[in-house]
């Protein structure tokens, strides 16, 4: 899938249906409403923290992008706040898992 090959290069894409004008998430070749083929574009790297917690010294969160899609990742710098802004500094795939590293925007 486009999404994973681009994610491996550090690009965070989203799939979008031009017919339904919706972002289809999780990323998919097809729109889950009209079942037409999706198109791909870069996702905004700026997002918002929906919820977070902490394991040892690592903050993890559910972040929302483009006011629509949610994904979990790690906060690598800054103190998270609910609804606070974050920025994706790195993303990719390791051990078949996606990873997303974000910093808090002050």
């Amino acid at each position, binding site marked *: 899938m486009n999404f994973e090959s681009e994610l491996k290069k550090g690009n965070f894409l989203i799939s979008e249906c031009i017919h339904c004008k919706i972002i289809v*998430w*999780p990323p998919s070749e097809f729109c889950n409403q009209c079942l037409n083929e999706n198109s791909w574009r870069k996702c905004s790297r700026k997002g918002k923290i*929906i*919820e*977070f*917690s*902490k*394991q040892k010294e690592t903050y*993890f969160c*559910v972040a929302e992008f483009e006011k629509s899609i*949610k*994904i*979990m*990742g*790690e906060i690598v710098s800054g103190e998270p706040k*609910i609804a606070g802004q974050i920025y994706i500094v790195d993303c990719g795939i*390791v051990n*078949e*898992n*996606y*990873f*997303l590293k974000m910093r808090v925007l002050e």
Partner: protein
Amino acid sequence: MSKVAIVGYGLTKFSKDDFKIESVLINATKNLFDSTSNLNQKDIDAVLVSTNNNSKYLSAILSEMMGIQPKIAHSVESLCNSGTNSIVAAYSYIVSGLAELVLISGAEKYDSPGQILEWDKLRGQFKHPIFWASIFSKSYKRKYSITDEDIALVSVKNHKQSKNNPNAFSQISVSVNDVLNSKKLTDDLRLLDCSRPCTGGASILLASENIYKKFTDDPIWITGIGQKTTSASFTKNLAFHTMESTKQAALSAFQMSKQNPNNIDVVEVHDAFSVCEPMALDSIGFTKLGEGMKMVKEVYLTENSKINPRGGLIGSGHPLGATGIAQTIEITQQLQSKAGKRQVDNANVGLIHNMSAAATSSTVLVLEN
């Protein structure tokens, strides 16, 4: 619509034992045969197995080992609510007329592959259930001004209640401090907030109204069924302080049974983690949103065991494919006044809540005597 009765059941002890999955299924089913009168293998039209185990053809294997040649035999998998999904499938076979008597057996091993949903890549590296549980817990606490001390009471209550359940994994008492001082998995989750994966089996026998009398004088009727799957991905939940699939499943089950939360005398809710108990009580409609902890506190202080009398998943252990069936057996025993030390007074209507993968799918059943 024709009626469906629960007419027999059998359980194994929930443990960390390394038994073969086939042995667990067979042992639970042997216990069902031993405790059900007049049951002949020839009576059984369908055999369903619910598990996340990777072994194949388990319903045929169980049938052969028990001397059954069923018309219908297959497995049912839906992660943690596999058990109630198999009950719903069995119900449908009976109501459709394809079967009169269905044997269901659920089993799991302590190292079940059903604990982690590999497909859900949107969880990033945070795939283990402790991470969604931490997000739920944080969110619920923040939204409703609830503390870790408050939530710890769920674990205290369910450990206490499991001491009256001889099949339970846990036989120890814990205090609020024990919970708070147990291993910190994340800032929002301690080890004693978690149900534990274990090895265990549960078998149940469902019959049509034409034949139930042959097996029992104490039938328990399945009068309400509600199911809803909202997504598979954890992050697709609309909110993390409430269970949307549970709300919708409960509405359907109440509508079908013509019951309402006020009429429920005893309930098994899916406390995979301690926060799930108050969240489920809210979402089913026993309380206003955010007041589930008040209800837990109240029953605890009055020594009323109507919520998770067998100890829930936290006290009993959580052998995924067996859990929904074990919950249903508990409510059955309660409504038959056969729950021994766990018996709740005047139990006539009961409810089971069983869910999967961070509440992305829920089943709610209503049973009546």
